[in-house]
């Protein structure tokens, strides 16, 4: 019997073929071709352990949480609160009181904007973001500016799509109340020096919110080491279901913030004269939460850690390097975003072919990429382009996927001659 051996002391090679078998959707055929899914930055796919955890919860444990003495309500509460503890561990937060379940990154940022920013900020105060932000980390702050009279400042980027750090540092002042920054740019893949930015922001007395939507699937996030006062992310970009996300906030900050939405779950007592609010984190969780989503998120974290986040990240880096080299050889391809430190995203244009046409042509050969402005119109404006095509990699992508992308781009060049 032949045994598979690996050199003593070497880590076992990352087995993407085995990982792919965990994702049933990857067996799909699109337009007669096996699916090549290169759109994980928009939404990743779900592995069987996540699908099964959700199914098992719905089949055996569902009732409303925190509301009943009956067995199922207790089972649901245990599953939901167990998921919260799983998230705490994933982020290395101090307490589950710091873990608020929300719909996703967007809701998490809006919660901070409305509950932290709106009551505190006023004329003369500044919110500092970067030119790389997703609309979800721009518009909520513009709304707070309209509501309070505070000012939005934007730290610029260079032509490689990297933060101009010195400019960022110059924009920090005693007026800066909050720095809101992406951990990883969704449009370009740039990894921002968040820890350094947080240190600088704190030195000026500003708080730091990190939009971690694109970071959590690719990197180990320790909110304490990072120095994030708030950290927001979505489940669906890290192999969990849609409609569940997390706001991490330092307990002291969350404690001082008023509830964002009112309703059930977030109260202790209600009378027509006055209601008293629940403790953290439930103070911020009005209404019945997405219980099965939280269960799925916990399962996704287990799954990702079973693969090893570092191993996944290393695998994706290899694919990114391969794709960057391969696309660089195709005449007319221009890479958009060439930062020294990138994660998993390759944005590009092809001369003479609009990104939308490129997306259609790639789709006809079964290759799914995102095309458009990636909810980052200011980034597109900076580069003077209306749109890019974006290939993004997840734990299940392979070198074959890169080859299929390259072949598809060849097809696009043929069609447009």
């Amino acid at each position, binding site marked *: 019997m032949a045994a598979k051996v690996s050199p003593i002391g070497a880590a076992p090679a990352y087995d993407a073929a085995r990982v792919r078998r965990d994702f049933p959707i990857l067996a799909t055929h699109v*337009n007669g071709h096996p699916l090549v899914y290169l759109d994980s930055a928009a939404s990743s796919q779900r592995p069987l352990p996540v699908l099964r955890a959700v199914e098992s919860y719905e089949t055996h444990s569902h009732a409303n949480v925190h509301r009943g003495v009956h067995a199922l309500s207790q089972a649901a509460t245990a599953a939901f609160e167990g998921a919260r503890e799983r998230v705490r561990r994933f982020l290395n937060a101090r307490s589950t009181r710091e873990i608020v379940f929300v719909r996703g990154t967007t809701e998490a940022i809006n919660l901070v904007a409305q509950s932290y920013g709106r009551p505190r900020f006023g004329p003369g105060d500044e919110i500092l973001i970067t030119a790389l932000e997703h609309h979800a980390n721009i518009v909520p702050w513009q709304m707070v500016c309209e509501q309070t009279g505070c000012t939005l400042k934007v730290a610029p980027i260079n032509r490689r799509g990297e933060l101009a750090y010195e400019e960022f540092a110059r924009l920090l002042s005693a007026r800066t109340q909050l720095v809101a920054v992406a951990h990883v740019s969704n449009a370009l893949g740039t990894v921002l020096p968040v820890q350094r930015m947080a240190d600088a922001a704190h030195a000026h007395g500003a708080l730091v919110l990190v939009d971690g939507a694109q970071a959590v699937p690719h990197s180990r996030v320790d909110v304490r080491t990072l120095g994030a006062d708030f950290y927001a992310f979505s489940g669906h970009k890290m192999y969990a279901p849609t409609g569940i996300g997390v706001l991490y906030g330092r307990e002291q900050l969350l404690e001082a913030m008023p509830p964002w939405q009112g309703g059930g779950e977030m109260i202790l007592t209600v009378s027509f004269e006055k209601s008293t609010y629940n403790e953290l984190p439930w103070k911020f969780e009005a209404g019945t939460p997405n219980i099965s989503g939280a269960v799925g998120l916990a399962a996704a974290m287990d799954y990702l850690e079973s693969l090893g986040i570092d191993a996944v990240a290393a695998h994706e880096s290899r694919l990114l390097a391969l794709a960057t080299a391969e696309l660089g050889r195709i005449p007319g391809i221009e890479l958009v975003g060439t930062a020294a430190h990138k994660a998993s995203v390759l944005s590009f244009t092809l001369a*003479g*072919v*609009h*990104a*939308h*046409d490129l997306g*259609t*042509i790639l789709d*006809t050969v079964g290759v799914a990429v995102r*095309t*458009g*402005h990636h909810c980052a*119109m200011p980034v*597109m404006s900076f580069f003077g382009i*209306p*749109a890019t095509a974006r290939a993004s990699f997840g734990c299940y992508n392979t070198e074959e996927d890169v080859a299929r992308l390259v072949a598809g781009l060849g*097809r696009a060049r043929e*069609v*447009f*001659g």
Partner: protein
Amino acid sequence: MDLKELYRDVILDHNRHPRNFGRLEGAGGGELLHADGHNPLCGDRLSVYVRMNGERVEDIRFEGSGCAISTASASLMTEAVKGKERAAVARLFEQVHTLLTHHDAAPDAGLGKLAALSGVREFPARVKCATLSWHTLKAALEHGAATVSTE
């Protein structure tokens, strides 16, 4: 799905060499109408300029940046409506709309080169690319100056 149905030679030609591209300025008499169109889904923007002579489209131009389908559709549109009466343009709008959205509609004989757009209906995600210029023209004729959106 057949790419050749979508990217027919006429489409590729009008994408590469858009006709009546540019803007119309105020000089030259006649009523000058203008509207901007925007497809927030893909970021495409285009402007349509029309010079009317009474009820007749005396001249028409468009400018903007967009995909091959939206550029070719706009270019073909300018050729098709130039010299037509307002009412005839409205009829053409309906015919094109039917062509793009009704799966089994046979191209109307009167459509001429516009029939090349029929391949778009097999690609539902791209129908809005083809209709953007037409909605923008409609807005220009009906309101004179407006921004229309496909969403």
